[in-house]
């Protein structure tokens, strides 16, 4: 069967059919669609050019974007690892401390150094590993400081290609030895295309030892390393700190501060900027983890709320108002490190005086376990040494306590406190020498501390589960941490900045952050 006759070239371009021209032009059987072919070729060539343009642009751009992404994700990995380690450190401050850095979670322990396994996470296979070590112990409180070193690794997707940083090229760029690297993106991101430049140049721990050429797997990849210092949070970091409602103080009251290690309290310093102690007089800070607070009196310090609407009133708050400072107060339980209690006394239902058999230390005090306390307990110093005492009262405190000079007392109470201010006798003059701790009820029941007039007191209260009420117009030196606070008297309140260093750790915070950018 013959193929249908094709129209001639001229018929295509002129629009005149071959039949109409049959008298003038002969039929040429081997002429075919050259114009169509040329058009297709042209389109093909132009398409190739366009595709090449797109390919060139997108390939290099995508590669550069990949490198940027991986570099940033490596930091995310390192910070995630630091969070993992930080979480373990925070467990140390809880009653569950024995479960910190457990082998079941992949940690290995060597002395006071803890090393994690490698954690892989995310859709891009990010990896992190951490080391935590105890590098400093506070000589006053015995609280530990920890150092976290975390390494984050991000595999670089795609082939081993350079990015779009060639405009700055004038040096060696992808050698194993990182100290001779060039510039541009390579200098910043330090991509390990084949070998681990850090191990080759600085050693695996970065201290210059055990340098080696080590191939990276998977290759290529980026690593980033950070070091965090984790500091203990002590109980008494503000004059008043409550997690709930706050009302106070009286309209003529004031809260200021001083530092007992510098000198005794002087009420005139807070209004004398030229005095060298002035800086220490402006830390009468009130922290409220609530949006509702009734603030009266003068605050020579900062005022923090959580979503509150407190605005600065020059006459009231002399520091900074920040309405976006949320925090939590965890429930409190008695420390597990306390030694075995003394055999006697076991209760104070008559006026009692004790002289501890040993001076002890903040971490190893003389312990008295009491079942009731409604009379006066006087605590003497052991010789001339600073004497450390811990009292654990398993019921309510309705008596009085007299702390002689040179004595440091931590008073742990399971029940409520109902006393007059004059019943709290601290002859040392330092609030840190008489620390009240209200142990949080495990059954969720309410707890309160009522301090009534008359009298003044020098002490600290840490009661995260208790409602604190103070009546009258006492002169107070110390700090209060409670669930709520109510006080309507014209109190003069002095926070001792030396309290920053006292008390057992209640939590940890990150105090320093550095990145090893080598």
């Amino acid at each position, binding site marked *: 069967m013959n193929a249908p006759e094709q129209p001639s070239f001229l018929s295509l371009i002129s629009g005149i059919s071959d039949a109409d021209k049959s008298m003038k032009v002969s039929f040429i059987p081997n002429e075919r669609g050259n114009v169509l072919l040329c058009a297709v070729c042209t389109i093909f060539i132009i398409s190739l050019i366009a595709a090449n343009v797109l390919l060139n642009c997108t390939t290099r751009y995508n590669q550069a974007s990949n490198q940027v992404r991986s570099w940033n994700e490596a930091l995310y990995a390192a910070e995630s690892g630091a969070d993992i380690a930080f979480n373990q450190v925070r467990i140390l401050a809880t009653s569950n401390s024995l479960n910190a850095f457990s082998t079941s979670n992949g940690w290995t322990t060597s002395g006071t150094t803890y090393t994690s396994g490698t954690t892989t996470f995310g859709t891009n296979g990010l990896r992190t590993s951490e080391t935590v070590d105890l590098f400093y112990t506070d000589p006053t409180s015995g609280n530990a400081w920890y150092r976290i070193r975390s390494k984050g690794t991000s595999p670089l997707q795609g082939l081993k290609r350079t990015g779009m940083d060639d405009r700055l090229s004038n040096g060696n760029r992808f050698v194993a030895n990182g100290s001779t690297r060039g510039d541009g993106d390579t200098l910043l991101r330090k991509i390990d295309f084949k070998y681990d430049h850090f191990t080759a140049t600085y050693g695996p721990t970065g201290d210059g030892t055990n340098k080696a050429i080590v191939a990276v797997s998977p290759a290529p990849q980026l690593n980033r390393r950070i070091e965090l210092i984790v*500091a203990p949070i002590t109980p008494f970091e503000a004059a008043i700190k409550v997690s709930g409602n706050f009302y106070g103080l009286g309209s003529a009251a004031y809260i200021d501060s001083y530092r007992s290690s510098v000198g005794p309290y002087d009420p005139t310093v807070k209004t004398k900027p030229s005095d060298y102690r002035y800086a220490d007089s402006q830390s009468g800070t009130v922290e409220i983890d609530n949006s509702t607070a009734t603030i009266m009196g003068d605050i020579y310090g900062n005022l923090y709320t959580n979503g509150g609407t407190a605005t600065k009133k020059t006459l009231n708050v002399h520091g900074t108002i920040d309405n976006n400072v949320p925090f939590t107060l965890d429930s409190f339980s008695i420390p597990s490190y306390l030694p075995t209690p003394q055999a006697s006394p076991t209760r104070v239902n008559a006026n009692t005086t004790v002289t501890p058999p040993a001076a002890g230390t903040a971490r190893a005090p003389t312990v008295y376990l009491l079942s009731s306390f409604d009379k006066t307990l006087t605590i003497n110093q052991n010789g001339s040494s600073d004497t450390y005492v811990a009292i654990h009262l398993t019921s309510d405190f309705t008596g009085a306590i007299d702390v002689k000079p040179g004595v440091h007392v931590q008073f742990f109470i399971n029940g409520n406190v109902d006393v007059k201010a004059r019943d709290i006798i601290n002859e040392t003059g330092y609030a840190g020498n008489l620390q009240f701790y209200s142990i949080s009820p495990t059954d969720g029941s309410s707890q309160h501390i009522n301090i009534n007039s008359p009298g003044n007191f020098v002490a600290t209260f840490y009661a995260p589960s208790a409602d604190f009420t103070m009546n009258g117009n006492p002169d107070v030196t110390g700090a209060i941490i409670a669930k709520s606070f109510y006080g309507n008297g014209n109190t003069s309140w002095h926070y001792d900045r030396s309290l920053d260093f006292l008390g057992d750790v209640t939590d940890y915070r990150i105090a320093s952050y550095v990145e090893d950018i080598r």
Partner: protein
Amino acid sequence: MKLTHHSHQSGFTLAEILTAMAIAVVIFAAIITSSLAMQKSFNAVDNYFATHIQQIRIIDYLNRDVKRALIVTTSADQQTVTLTIPKYVVQSTDQDGQSNSSLIGTMRTPTISPTSSYQVNYDYVGTTTPATSTVVYSINGASILRTEDGVVTTVASSTDSLVPKDSDTELTNTEYSTMSVTFLPIFTSGNVADERTGTTVFSLAYLRNKRRG
């Protein structure tokens, strides 16, 4: 009346050749024009991407340094940023590195000062002097420079007139730095200000050493 069929006819008529040449000229003109346009387009896109990558590099440099800085200050025109950064590693130019070469390349152990406050410092080894670097970001012609203790590094360089801007915000217990980098593409077609605005890359970084307790 029909003409004889010539089976061996192989040439073109003058009209055909002229027509074909005209078409060929048009086609080649189209190819050349397209190629030039594509080349220009490639240059424009490549330049845009390359400058964009440099934008990101400036942001990444600044971000990295801000996060680990102790102090960040910016000039009034927001184009010069000065940072104080702890010196984590002993360098050969440091006083402790010069007095004891074995310390060079080692990491400093931070010191805690419990007498006044709990500031963490990376001191020069054997002293109580904090070891810090001063890093300055600035513009010099078409280049963005990073100067650390006098050592200059060109962070980015482009004829597209890169302009970084940084502002520092210090709150009660925290501090952050906002950064934006713009450039003016070589191939602009309209309002220059709008062209620049359209290239803005923005970032915000908190100083990790100044965080809420």
